[in-house]
């Protein structure tokens, strides 16, 4: 066996091992170690991506000395490798971009614990990307839930405890439903490995046995993962959560953690139940309706909020709606759009959170729009980064958001008139609302604050913190912007990988 086939397993193991190591390291050493681990895993994921796409192939990896149905198994193809690459890239960027805030926000004795938790987030995301076993998926789903709650609550400020409690309750509800679904799958098929469950499900659909349990199981799994990823109307934890956490945590939570759950859902649709399954089709239609509702309601709430962080958080609720619309539309085009959106939004949201934190720091630590006036002049790199992220969310050509909207429109056209009209209307309305609140924000931060009314003791002239350089943030902003431009200018590269990967995925 070629050595490169070990890399998916190494990606998980490196993160797990470095989580243990970080818990005993000093804060500085832990930060360096974590960054190194993230870089190494990124290199692993990238090599697996190149290996699988160049050979147009996928491979399975037995975890131990036993063959397929008896033991745990990993599986890596282009889609899995692409997800792992994008997750590890965003994790690395969010971490280095937010290091300065993490140092200030988190008490010194907890800094190593923060690195431990980030490593565990990484391990869980890698395992969710590569696992070929439903129960392994559940175990690492739990690690992801716990560690993301940890990175959220580690900053003790304002509403974090309340936000974390709400996040935990909703997430545990989702985990509970998913666990029930996993158990029922095992009960009716006798397997936990994805291909074997699918064979069992296909047999059951032909014979018509256990029709009620099968339908309920699919419903439970879909509902559990939709709740965990924050689909409307289960998005209520988002604004408080993303609004109060330290920027790295907000970036990681919104950029990749919720995407990890959705990736597992797509995997289940393709590899556990089968795309053409009748029960799954009706479940996807329900997800589609909630996705459309999420797009519109998320945008409306985002427009109403007076705080930068809350606005970005509500816009996340809308963007998660996009992914579910893609899943609901189905077909090659729909899933390509959904996966493309997972990657594009994973790059945009961290950029917005990190640069938004920098802008509010340059405005006396206020996130209110009134105080943010002229912030882009006080900190030019952050202003530019925010503008790129915001314009990409609106869907300006050459940026990733434009390609996303194009893929969704293309996917919608393949369906009937009603779906077509609904999707395109939602797209148009969301673009309009996005433009209203994001362009408004960009204009505000670029309007000179000459004699702007500020409501607070903040005087725009003192720029002590704004003048200090933050190389980590600049590196992260450059990295994320490069990703957004790559997706926007050459969407065909990524969508080509996705569509060829989806053919191998099933």
């Amino acid at each position: 066996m070629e050595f490169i086939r070990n890399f998916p397993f190494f990606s998980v193991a490196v993160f797990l091992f470095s989580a243990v190591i970080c818990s005993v390291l000093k804060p500085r050493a832990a930060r360096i170690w974590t960054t190194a681990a993230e870089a190494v895993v990124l290199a692993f994921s990238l090599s697996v991506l190149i290996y699988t796409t160049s050979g147009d192939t996928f491979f399975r990896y037995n975890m131990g000395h036993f063959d397929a149905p008896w033991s745990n198994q990993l599986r890596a193809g282009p889609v899995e490798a692409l997800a792992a690459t994008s997750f590890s890239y965003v994790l690395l960027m969010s971490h280095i971009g937010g290091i300065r805030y993490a140092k200030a926000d988190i008490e010194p004795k907890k800094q190593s614990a923060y690195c431990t938790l980030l490593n565990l987030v990484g391990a869980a995301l890698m395992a969710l990307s590569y696992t070929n076993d439903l129960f392994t998926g559940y175990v690492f789903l739990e690690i992801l839930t716990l560690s993301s709650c940890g990175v959220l609550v580690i900053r003790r400020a304002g509403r974090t405890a309340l936000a974390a409690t709400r996040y935990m309750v909703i997430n545990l509800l989702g985990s509970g439903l998913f666990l029930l679904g996993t158990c029922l799958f095992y009960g009716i098929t006798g397997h936990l490995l994805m291909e074997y469950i699918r064979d069992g499900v296909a047999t059951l659909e032909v014979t018509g046995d256990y029709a009620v349990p099968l339908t309920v199981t699919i419903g439970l799994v879909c509902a559990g993962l939709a709740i965990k990823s924050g689909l409307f109307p289960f998005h209520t934890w988002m604004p408080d959560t993303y609004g109060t956490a330290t920027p790295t945590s907000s970036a990681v939570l919104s950029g990749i953690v919720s995407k990890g759950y959705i990736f597992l859902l797509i995997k289940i649709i393709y590899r556990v139940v089968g795309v053409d399954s009748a029960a799954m089709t009706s479940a996807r239609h329900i997800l589609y309706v909630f996705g459309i509702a999420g797009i519109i309601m998320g945008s409306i709430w985002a427009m109403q909020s007076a705080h930068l962080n809350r606005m970005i958080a509500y816009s996340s609720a809308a963007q998660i709606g996009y992914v579910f619309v893609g899943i609901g539309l189905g077909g090659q085009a729909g899933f390509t759009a959904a996966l493309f959106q997972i990657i594009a939004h994973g790059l945009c949201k961290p950029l917005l959170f990190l640069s938004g934190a920098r802008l509010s720091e340059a405005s006396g630590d206020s996130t209110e729009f009134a105080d943010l006036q002229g912030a882009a002049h006080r900190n030019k790199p952050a202003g530019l980064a925010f503008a790129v992220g915001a314009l990409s969310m609106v869907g300006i050509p050459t940026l990733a958001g434009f390609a996303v909207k194009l893929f969704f429109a293309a996917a919608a056209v393949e369906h009937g008139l009603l779906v077509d009209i609904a999707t395109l209307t939602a797209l148009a309305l969301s673009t309009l609302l996005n433009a209203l609140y994001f362009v408004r924000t960009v204009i505000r931060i670029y309007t000179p604050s000459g004699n702007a009314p500020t409501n607070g003791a903040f005087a725009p002239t003192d720029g002590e913190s704004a003048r200090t350089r933050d190389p980590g943030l600049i590196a992260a902003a450059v990295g994320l912007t490069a990703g957004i431009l790559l997706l926007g200018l050459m969407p065909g590269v990524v969508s080509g990988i996705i569509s060829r990967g989806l053919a191998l995925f099933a």
Partner: protein
Amino acid sequence: MSIRDKLSALLGFDIDFDAPVPPRKTETAAEQTPDEWRFSRRIMRAGGRRLGAIYKILGVICSVVLMSTLLLTVAGMPRYGVDQEYMDTVTYEYISHGMEYTGAVNIVSGIILEYRAFDTLGESFVLFCAVSCVLALLRADGADSEPERVEYRDISCDPILRRTMRAVVPIVLLYGAYVLLFGHLSPGGGFSGGAVIGAALIMIASAYGEDVSGRILTERVFKTVTTCALSFYCLGKSYTFYTGANGLHSVIGNGTPGNILSAGLIMPLNVAVGMVVACTIYGMYRMIGQRRF
């Protein structure tokens, strides 16, 4: 004894006068009023009690629907052990060849630490993750430590409790060690044995107070044990996964099933998992009760 020490003794935790002030301004609840809730709040005021009643009724309806759906599902499931002939290939394999291939007389240990060892690796990291989260949440740290401690009646000087514990704790510890070490031969294993040992540590702490138990398991010991156990699990199992997946010969043999030194890595892994579980249980008890080790 300085004022600082006296105050520390009185309040029960270390006071650091020189601790730095939190560097960044933090948003308080008042500053972060969610504006977009105003609308719903207005509805709530207008609808008042009636809306609350509707909310409750809807909640009950949702629960009843979910309950009846799940009951219907259970009624439609395959009957256990009767209808499952075509789907019990995995179970059959585990029961018929489990002992031969893993060397463990206790098939459950063989399944969780050999066949499905990756899941169990994840499970022990769930525990580790939980402890890290509790540390992140509760750890009192210098300036931010909270002055109000939960007041509870100190029962640690109670003579009856101490006498009883003196008799019971050694037996419990011994039993825990037995469950750990014989996990591959008889019912038991890392998770159950670790829970027993953790319970014994909590008994010591509640009978003899935190001074005595603090001397037995300091934060240093806790960290060392957890780190060593998890690193051993991580590296040991990685070796098995690596050799297994690459079709290489593993130097770890199965031995003779039934011997205490058999079943490859299962016994050491049980001990490692047990250590992590015991430390987790005891650590959570200390953190939630005392906010520090």
